[in-house]
């Protein structure tokens, strides 16, 4: 047994002398950011697709398997994955990617976060670190990308310059796009979201959160809540945005009551996205938010 373990240990050390860093990200937005910053020096896989709510996920053995061999885990962090990631890390048998180690990166912890509304006590959304959904703010993502470059450089010193250069290029791409997005959103008012998961995007462009379809995080819209929301929205311009996995009934009812248009948008780019695909997702959100600007 001892000799067997020793052999396994040796095997592990050998596989450490690699070409590309193995990075496991929680969400596709984190995968896109890692690809943008890491380029050809990283091999990225994501634990969650963009058709799932990263908040509500349950632990799957395949996640432990993926994290088992990772050099780096990139999470949104700030408790977004609190319901499952700690257990995945604890059961993966990989010391390098544990919280606090060089192989563990949390994007939301690298930037200034918006506060969460006070919790009702009945919600498990007790975010100690504020709202974690930074992934839809391109500027905060660019900033997190620069931190990520430092993390990657620490793990793969030979390519440190590439990481810093690519992070700078991603920031430049975001900054080049900002005026275009601002121009498109001229006159846009705000949006009704299903959950408070796109508030960073609204905040970035000075748009208002007109309300959430969920009366309490994790509770689907009730008829009562929709009526109250519709009353508040009288004469208001804007757009209703929902994720593909949300049931269409609530948004449809609110739309019928208020006349606001509905847009269905994912919160993340596709699982194989790079930096460009991430920017296209922001394009799509900007287009959707602009749609509510004029009646």
């Amino acid at each position: 047994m001892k000799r067997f373990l020793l052999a396994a240990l040796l095997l592990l050390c050998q596989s450490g002398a690699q070409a590309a860093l193995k990075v496991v990200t929680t969400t596709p937005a984190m995968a896109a950011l890692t690809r943008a910053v890491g380029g050809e020096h990283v091999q990225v896989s994501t634990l969650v697709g963009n058709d799932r709510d990263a908040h509500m996920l349950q632990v799957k053995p395949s996640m432990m398997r993926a994290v088992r061999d990772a050099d780096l885990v990139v999470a949104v962090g700030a408790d977004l994955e609190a319901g499952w990631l700690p257990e995945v890390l604890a059961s993966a048998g990989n010391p390098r990617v544990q919280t606090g180690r060089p192989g563990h990166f949390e994007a939301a912890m690298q930037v200034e976060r918006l506060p969460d509304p006070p919790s009702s006590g009945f919600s498990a959304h007790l975010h100690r670190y504020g709202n974690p959904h930074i992934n839809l703010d391109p500027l905060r993502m660019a900033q997190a990308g620069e931190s990520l470059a430092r993390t990657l450089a620490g793990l793969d010193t030979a390519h440190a310059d590439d990481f810093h250069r690519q992070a700078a290029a991603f920031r430049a791409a975001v900054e080049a796009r900002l005026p275009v997005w601002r121009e498109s959103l001229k006159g846009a008012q705000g949006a009704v979201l299903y959950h408070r998961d796109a508030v960073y995007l609204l905040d970035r462009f000075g748009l208002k959160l007109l309300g959430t379809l969920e009366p309490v995080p994790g509770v689907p819209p009730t008829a009562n809540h929709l009526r109250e929301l519709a009353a508040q929205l009288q004469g208001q311009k804007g757009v209703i945005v929902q994720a593909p996995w949300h049931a269409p009934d609530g948004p449809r009812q609110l739309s019928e009551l208020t006349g606001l248009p509905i847009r269905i948008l994912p919160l993340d780019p596709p699982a194989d996205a790079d930096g460009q695909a991430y920017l296209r997702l922001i394009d799509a959100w900007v287009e959707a938010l602009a749609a509510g600007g004029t009646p």
Partner: protein
Amino acid sequence: MKRAALLLLPLFSPLALAEFQFQPSVFLDGAWYGDSVHGEGNNMILNSPGLQNTHAHGGDEHDHAGGGHNHGTDVREGLNLRYAETTLYGLLPGVFDTRTNITFSPRAGEVSVEEFWFRSLGLPAGLQVKAGKFLSDIGYLNNQHPHQWDMADAPLAYQLLLGGALNQTGVQLNWTPPLPWYTRLGMEISQGENSGYASVMGPATLHHEHEEEEQGEEEPAVQVPFDSRYNGARMVTAFVKIAPEIGDDHALQLGAFWSRSRQHQELHEPHPGVNAALHGMQGSAWIAGADVVYKYDAPQAYGVGDLKIQAEYIYQNKDLRLTYHELQPGLVGQPRELRQDGFYVQAQYGILPRFTLGARYDMTGLTHEALRAGSTRGPTTPSYFEDMKRVTAALTWHITETQKLRFQVARTNAPVGVDDGAAGRVERQSFNQYYIQYQIGFGAHAAHGF
């Protein structure tokens, strides 16, 4: 907690204690309970005549016959506060995490430390050590607390063969090998004190329970000479879990386990039609089992379309010798091999946003026999005992992320002892059980496993 962390620090790393993260949470569980047998449903299950109907202590548990470690889920007719569970989770990043579960059960009037363990997070090569008091990682349900269950109660196999769950003080070493499929191999060495399996009673002095009938008259005490030897780590447990990849939306896990305890002591009390006299037995015991879990994660919100199917089988073998017999002392030393098994199959489906419908079929006693073969004294005929079957349906409303309301109906068919003159006999009886269970959690709860 913090002091314990401080003590362990030099062993692991020079990290600052300031990094220690701490998350407390509390779960409260209340239930309205009713059944078709005047509130005796759970007693009839736990005291059903057969091999499970033993008087078997496990560690610090109280002595309900047959079932000891019930996680405080005992109920009586009407309204019950079943338990309040406090979980203290601590994490020293990259070094270890620790969890303490303290359960207060008003019904039993006791506070018990169900778990208190430390688990390493920094060992290389996929290795991990866990030490303390913990629910063994055998099977699928064994390491889950009642607030994680999809039903209000545990499967019969857990209640009758493991005394609720295998909960041990010991050390676990587990290994996640670098294989294409997630695989986990684990070994536990533990004290070996549990109800149902690996129960340890020690030398016992018993008084017959006739006090109500014959007030004031002292019955002579009975001395049951159970060994007090084997003080020390008596139990070895091994388990394996393998999770074949079957696509992004699906998850499958197969498991198997084996466990042996070199001490098991139990007392069989007189029971109509099953057992004429008080007798005590001791020896070794082992259990083995297999489990399978399948989950489908549907691309819809609030659990709609999600499916979970789980099944477990547990086999128990006790290799004992009579150490005391009230009526025939000459039988002392005679071997007895007791075998019993059980299984359950359970499915859970998200029918509406936040509503899940569950169904369970469970059974014990497919094998349920006592062998006297191999003895030079006495007969060699085996005795066979009855099986027990149950069908359960549960509708759970996940009101918010931290509140649940569950309506559960079960129909059980069990052997029941009937006091029919001197001999007595065993009859089969069917009865219904009803639960309306409410559960609420406070605080950021630590993540759950698969």
